[in-house]
């Protein structure tokens, strides 16, 4: 036990002390931080006024576009579009909206000229304004009371309740959380699995393996490496969690509440302030619809379980590789294949979490770490009954005990086998050999 601890310590410290560990550990949260910060910066910077020139030859829209949050419309008359579309910038406009003489029933030829892409928000805002006004004009022509029509409009969201306690659910949030956690598990399996494989290859190719095997059992050497690298992964996670929480806490200090609310505004578009607050409440409400304790506990379990399940197999592959690293590619294929099938089943499961493909995918240990994480946000025991979760967990535990045992047998022989190219067929024969 003492020896395996020494090995774990070495695997852990040599990796953590590497420069690449620091780089990856800091870059990933920076990347996430950038994803949060950049839109805010853009929103903050684009706060300066957008002045849009309007040439309205139909005279239908004159002074009827509402100025809103830094977007101002200026109605110009007696100016030719053909000349002004080349010179609007000189007059300080960011764009030119041209409305030709229109047949209100068949409007066409409305054009917006600008140098830069106007952005999705501006585009949809302009479209909506023009459509609203044309609709109103048509109603007027048909003698329909516009006020009455507005009064008829309905804006209702169906209340989706799931589970017996009538817990409010939200498929979009479950989809997002399920997809993200399934995908993170996939990346973990690949990244850390390959890391284990490279470590074993390094030991074999540099011939330290034989020196080590004269002091420790091959199984201790393999498990020490697997556990040491798992420790690196967990530490990295912990740092990320701390950094992400830290960034979120510090964020308001760097950006005024105003700029954040203006970011939210972008999403809310023309909706009023009250509506924005209501929407925010709704988001926090649906986020609350997910049982985070279950998700986080299961995430850690499936992360570790899946990692242990696959890393032993990756270690076995590493032990089969000789000098030629290109051998590794052919040898890893049978192991990466089920992981790739897993991510495909996960993508289908997150859309349809109760299909039989999703259910079996979340139970069979080859794919369960990814697929189960895709299903869990839809609710336990609503979407995922307890028996399925229990079966999946026990099979994964049995699974990693089995793969570790099998891989240990292959590893023990492979790590000392030099010179010869080893095939899977041969390696599988070693499993049957008595110690």
């Amino acid at each position: 036990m003492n020896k395996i601890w020494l090995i774990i310590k070495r695997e852990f410290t040599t990796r953590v002390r590497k420069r690449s560990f620091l780089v990856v550990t800091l870059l990933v949260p920076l990347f996430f931080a950038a994803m949060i910060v950049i839109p805010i910066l853009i929103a903050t910077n684009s706060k300066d006024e957008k002045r849009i020139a309007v040439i309205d030859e139909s005279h239908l829209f004159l002074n009827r576009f509402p100025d809103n949050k830094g977007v101002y419309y200026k109605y110009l008359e007696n100016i030719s579009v053909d000349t002004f579309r080349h010179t609007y910038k000189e007059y300080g406009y960011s764009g030119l909206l041209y409305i030709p003489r229109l047949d209100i029933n068949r409007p066409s030829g409305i054009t917006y000229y600008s140098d830069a892409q106007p952005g999705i928000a501006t585009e949809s805002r302009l479209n909506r304004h023009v459509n609203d006004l044309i609709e109103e004009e048509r109603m007027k022509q048909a003698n329909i009371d516009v006020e009455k029509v507005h009064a008829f409009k309905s804006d209702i969201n169906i209340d989706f309740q799931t589970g017996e306690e009538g817990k409010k659910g939200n498929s979009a949030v479950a989809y997002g959380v399920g997809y993200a956690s399934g995908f993170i598990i996939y990346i973990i399996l690949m990244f850390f699995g390959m890391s284990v494989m490279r470590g074993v290859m390094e030991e074999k190719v540099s011939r330290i393996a034989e020196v080590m095997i004269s002091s420790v059992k091959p199984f201790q050497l393999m498990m020490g490496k697997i556990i040491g690298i798992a420790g690196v992964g967990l530490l990295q996670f912990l740092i990320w969690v701390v950094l992400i929480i830290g960034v979120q806490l510090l964020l308001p200090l760097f950006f005024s509440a105003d700029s954040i609310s203006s970011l939210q505004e972008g999403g809310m578009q023309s909706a009023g302030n009250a509506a924005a607050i209501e929407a925010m409440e709704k988001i926090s409400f649906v986020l609350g619809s997910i049982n985070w304790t279950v998700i986080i506990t299961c995430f850690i379990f499936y992360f570790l379980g899946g990692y242990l399940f696959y890393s032993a197999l990756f270690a076995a592959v590493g032990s089969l590789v000789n000098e030629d690293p290109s051998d590794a590619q052919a040898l890893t294929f049978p192991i990466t294949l089920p992981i790739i099938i897993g991510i495909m089943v996960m993508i289908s499961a997150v859309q349809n979490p109760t299909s039989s493909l999703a259910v079996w995918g979340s139970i069979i240990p080859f794919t369960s770490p990814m697929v189960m994480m895709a299903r869990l946000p839809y609710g336990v025991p609503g979407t995922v009954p307890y028996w399925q979760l229990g079966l999946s967990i026990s099979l994964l535990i049995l699974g990693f005990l089995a793969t570790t045992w099998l891989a240990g047998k292959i590893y023990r022989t492979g790590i000392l086998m030099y010179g010869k190219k080893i095939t899977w067929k041969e390696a599988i024969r070693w499993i049957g050999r008595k110690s």
Partner: protein
Amino acid sequence: MPKAKAIFLSSFPAPLLISCAFFIYIYSMNLIEVKNLRKDYATHKAVDDISFVIPQGSIFGLLGPNGAGKTTLLRMITGIFYPDQGEILFKGRPFDSHTDIHAIGYMPEERGLYKKMKVGEQALYLAQLKGLKEKEAREKIKYWFDKFEINSWWNKKVEELSKGMQQKVQFISTIMHNPDLLILDEPFSGLDPINSNLIKQEIFDLSRNGTTIIFSTHRMEQVEEICDRIILVNKGQKILDGEVKQIKQDFKQHVFRIGLGQQPNFAQVATHHFQIIKQQGADLTVKLADGSNTNDILKHFIGYNIPVTSFHEILPSINEVFIQQVQQTEPALQPATI
């Protein structure tokens, strides 16, 4: 008289007697006894019914051409492989891989160190894996690093060292836990003559201090210089084993070199007692005939009144024995590497 005898006996304290007997027992016992060892691989028999003993404190040579089964044999002795059949006794009892592994230092032919690790940390790590406490390990490493004058390497990465320098580090990591059994597979390959000599002296020192050494090689001149006993294996089978001196005796061809005071003429060497193999002036190399002895040769020259200035037997080198024995077991093939 009987009374005096009793006093004499009782004056010997019993504990001393017992401990003396114990030491005699320890030093006369075999550190390793290998009995009918077998190991089969999928395609061939790697070790086929090999038995031998390694006495405590000896330097034991394991010889054989490439692919003879030496490495497999060593891996079984170190507990890395389990034999298919037979047993290995270590200090008189079956090898226990949990405790006895610390009593072994193994330097494999294919050497390796973690390239990115610092020399000092690496030595410390390997020493701790051999069961030393950290403090103890540091002291030992310091002792050996001082002795080999490599203290300045502590913070260097292994990949920055030359092959010979790495070899020294490897040798130190093999011996720093004071193993009872030291297994060296081709310890001199890649070393310059100065470092070779340094390691050789270290091997002799360790042997004097009671370490048993298994020395696997195909460099025969080193075998004669270093080993007390050898075993020769080929194709998984033992061809011969025994003391180096005894083997040379066993394989002697009864060849003698004779220095004479004057060059003998043709008639003076015509005899049924010996046959001339080589003649260089007054120096003869002769083979003794069956049924004759050395005195017959001397009498022959004395009879002609030719003075004999020197006379000694030429024993075969281990190299000659090796080639002869390997070729006998596989006449169609040349020994792979010698």
